[in-house]
């Protein structure tokens, strides 16, 4: 079909007689989704192998007919190609787009197929939606409103299976609700590399279970809950806490490591109930770690600094900042905007030295990198630091000992954990900005509480130099000002004509004009998937990250390590 293969390498597929251009080999479920329609499915998942077992995505498939003897295309009376539809329906998830392909997604036969499958899925399924945690985000519930009968023809005894099975520390299983789509099995095997799940027994008695003596306890186990289309797998942390339709979802970025996993923070009335992954094919696909999902608990941490613990006012801080021997310690978990203002404050007050504390960990080669700071590259980009941070501030320590530093500003870092001794801290005046109390805040002359990542807007730059934004999910602690507002006021106090920089939009207006890396970017226009920045200026730095999903360290770095 040479006339069909135009220059763009795309082919034409006809969905319900409407022409759709797509790449050859596109999965039909994805293809139909790309034109805003939906083919119902349970077992298919774009990031897992195709299993084709739920049979919900059956469609009618046809190809232009060819004469058996001559091989010539068969034509209708009006000269158009005659489309020969296969007598049996085909699964859309297991079919790849080919030139001239015709599919019917709404025909009477397709509708009958789906109604049939729907009925089969429901006959042995408990009708316990009112007490099921999946209700509201259950595919069985959704598609049964489209294809269900509304009554049951089934008068027999239902199959009885185990309920409330503890699959692992974080996942609970109800086998009666399971539709045996095998997504969780495929995920464990293909993505998490922990092949512990499987089916036992046969036919309608098939039961999902864990390998004897093992548990579903890998750090990605909760993804099985996300991809479970029904209420079979539930999160032990989240189950029965909140009905999902009450939850507000806010796009955010996971702060667990420099991978920058895209997330959705679900909250209601200022309280976060869960964090789930948000799809980003360049970063985390549709996955996230279990450890990243509990980070929201830091909002209600018992050591959280509240407005009561605030001490000192702007004038008082200003007095300290006038010291000639002042040093700044920033944090790689602060946003690009915060680090920009923090750096600007340090330059304005003629800082002796700026530091960042490195937090390294052992990555898992999937979605946790070796760098536990989500925004090391942000600190580099705004110029707070020029070389990679170290986890021990020995240089700062010797500067204190030598009397070169007498005032220290710490932002969200416990300096004692970074090698500064209590004696050294006692020698200097400490101004502490941070969310939690620690030895540094105890020793500080001034303490200003700040907000967690869930309570403010901002951006991070991940290991791929991808600029990604997070939005405020819940209101900040009462009486605690936004970090940007604090720094903006402080800057204006030190330098009265600075202007209002208390919002991310205002900071971005400066960032885009002052730093070439950010040229043309703005917070408002930044897409939810983020944007890849050109990080080649920092290519020479030996970043600590190893290989993770969608990330390969630059060749030089590997050599340098070797």
């Amino acid at each position, binding site marked *: 079909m040479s006339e069909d293969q135009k220059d763009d390498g795309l082919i034409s597929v006809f969905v319900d007689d409407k022409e759709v251009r797509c790449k050859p080999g596109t999965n039909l479920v994805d293809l139909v989704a790309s034109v805003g329609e939906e083919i119902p499915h349970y077992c298919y998942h774009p990031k897992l192998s195709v299993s084709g*077992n739920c049979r919900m995505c059956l469609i009618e498939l046809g190809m232009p007919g060819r004469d058996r003897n001559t091989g010539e295309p068969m034509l209708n009376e009006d000269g158009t190609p005659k489309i020969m539809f296969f007598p049996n329906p085909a699964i859309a998830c297991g*079919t790849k787009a080919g030139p001239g392909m015709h599919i019917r997604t709404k025909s009477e036969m397709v509708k009958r197929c789906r109604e*049939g499958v729907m009925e089969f899925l429901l006959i042995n399924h408990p009708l316990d939606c009112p007490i099921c945690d999946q209700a509201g985000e259950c595919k069985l519930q959704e598609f049964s409103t489209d294809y269900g009968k509304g009554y049951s023809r089934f008068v027999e005894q239902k199959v009885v299976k185990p309920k409330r099975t503890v699959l692992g520390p974080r996942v609970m299983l109800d086998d009666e609700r399971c539709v045996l789509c095998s997504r969780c099995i495929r995920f464990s095997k293909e993505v998490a590399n922990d092949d512990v799940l499987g089916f036992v027994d046969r*036919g309608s008695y098939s039961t999902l279970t864990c390998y004897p003596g093992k548990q579903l306890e890998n750090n990605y186990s909760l993804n099985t809950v996300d991809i479970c289309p029904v209420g079979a797998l539930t999160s032990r942390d989240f189950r029965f806490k909140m009905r999902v339709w009450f939850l507000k979802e806010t796009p955010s970025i996971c702060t667990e490591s420099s991978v920058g996993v895209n997330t959705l923070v679900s909250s209601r009335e200022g309280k976060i109930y869960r964090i789930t992954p948000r799809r980003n094919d360049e970063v985390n696909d549709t996955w996230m770690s279990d450890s990243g999902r509990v980070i929201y608990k830091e909002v209600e941490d018992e050591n959280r600094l509240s407005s009561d613990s605030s001490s000192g006012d702007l004038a008082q801080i200003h007095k300290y900042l006038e010291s000639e021997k002042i040093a700044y310690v920033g944090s790689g978990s602060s946003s690009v905007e915060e680090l920009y203002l923090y750096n600007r404050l340090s330059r304005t007050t003629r800082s002796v030295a700026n530091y960042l504390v490195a937090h390294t960990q052992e990555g898992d080669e999937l979605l946790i990198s070796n760098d536990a700071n989500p925004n090391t590259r942000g600190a580099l980009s705004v110029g707070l630091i020029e070389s990679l941070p170290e986890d021990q501030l020995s240089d700062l320590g010797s500067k204190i000992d030598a009397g070169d530093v007498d005032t220290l500003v710490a932002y969200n870092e416990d300096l004692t954990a970074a090698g500064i001794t209590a004696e050294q801290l006692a020698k200097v005046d400490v101004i502490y900005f941070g969310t939690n109390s620690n030895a540094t805040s105890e020793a500080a002359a001034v303490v200003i509480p700040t907000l967690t990542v869930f309570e403010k807007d901002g951006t991070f730059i991940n290991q791929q130099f991808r600029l990604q934004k997070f939005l405020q999910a819940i209101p900040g602690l009462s009486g605690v000002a936004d970090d940007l507002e604090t720094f903006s006021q402080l800057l204006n106090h030190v330098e009265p004509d600075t202007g209002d920089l208390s919002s991310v939009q205002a900071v971005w207006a400066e960032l885009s004009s002052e730093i070439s890396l950010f040229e043309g970017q703005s917070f408002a226009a930044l897409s939810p998937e983020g944007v890849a920045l050109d990080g080649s200026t920092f290519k020479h730095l030996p970043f600590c990250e190893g290989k993770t999903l969608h990330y390969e360290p630059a060749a030089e770095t590997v050599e340098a390590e070797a």
Partner: protein
Amino acid sequence: MAAVERKILLKHADEDYYSPSIDSYLEQGGYEGLKKALAEKPEDLREAVKDSGLRGRGGAGFSCGIKWSLVDRKSGKPIYLICNCDESEPGTFKDRQLVHKDPHQLIEGMMISAFANDVALAFIYIREEMPLGAKILEKAIEEARAKNLVGENILGSGYSCDIVVHRGAGAYICGEETGLIESMEGKRPYPRIKPPFFPAVLGLYQCPTIVNNVETLCNVVHVVNMGVEEYTKIGRHGNTGTRIWCVSGMVKNPGYYEIEPMTMKEFLYDVCGGPLPGRKFKGCIPGGGSMKILGAEETYTDREGKSFSFDEIIVDYDGIAAAGSMSGSSGMMILDDSTDIVEALANITAFYAHESCGQCTPCREGSLWTKKITARMCTGGARPQDVDLLYDMAGNIGGRTVCPMGYSTTWPVQSYIEKFRDEFDSKAQANECGMKSFDERLIEK
């Protein structure tokens, strides 16, 4: 003249002089076909099998030669040959006879087929329930290896191929070729989706694979020995060669019979001895439990519009297909007027509910549901609407599943109801338990 058997595959099997040993086989001219084949070019052998018209004896009746021609020979991967000896279709017991009584015929057939397809490693997947067969085959392979008929440099030809006996894990679905392959790989025998997993391209260990039935492979020996011209004289066009039919049920002489195509009347009366005394044939399930029933009183019409009776059905692939069913695995079950058709259906559906692998929704849920309804109907709980429910629901299974086994539940239900509807209806009228549907109970309240 009364119709009789024509024994080719079973020529020696049941004779007193014969044993499953290699000496016995060699005495009867065994392995001559292999010698002859090794002197030929593999592609000529493939062509010969195609020209012979040999069709698969396992169930679908697909041309063996065309199956071989579809194998991907350019992939650079090894090609595997698997002998499907997972004979698990209800009413079928022919492969067991061939394996138990004449294992060397199968081994010779496999070696010829392996040579014809450049296979260096062949497998026999034998069902778990045939431990004796597995032992016999293993012994036979050892004997053949000792005589250099299997293994390295066979008979000095430079061609090497070994045969491995693999015992199955015991499930009906292992007889489906991709289920069999999964099982051989050590997984649950879930049939694979096609596309893309056609065995000829992506079979065992993702390599091109040929899966042939025992009887098919045994026939290859005779294609080579007789030559295409002689072989095609057996049977009729499109149905060449003999077939071994496994007859069970309400007939005087049940057993296995190797015949050329003949009419149903000749087969049932001359070969199988007719109905039991005082009984009348009700119908037959021609090709294993999953096939559509053929009613004895029915009038059939072929594609050309010619009508014919049950007695006139020709017992071969095309003859039974013309009557609207399939010869399947040639397990013929005869029902007579003593049979309660609803109970027969309950029996059959219980098997398919038990054996559904559970991979895909329609067969998994539909087969058990069917079993539960039919079982209830047989125990006095039939409702008038059950018949239509069964019929309608069965239509939601066949053709919508991963593998063709969906039809195993659909076809019996649909054909039994279509042909014996009155028996089903009378069950409902005789409802002893007075079972009412949920909706009916709701209305009463």
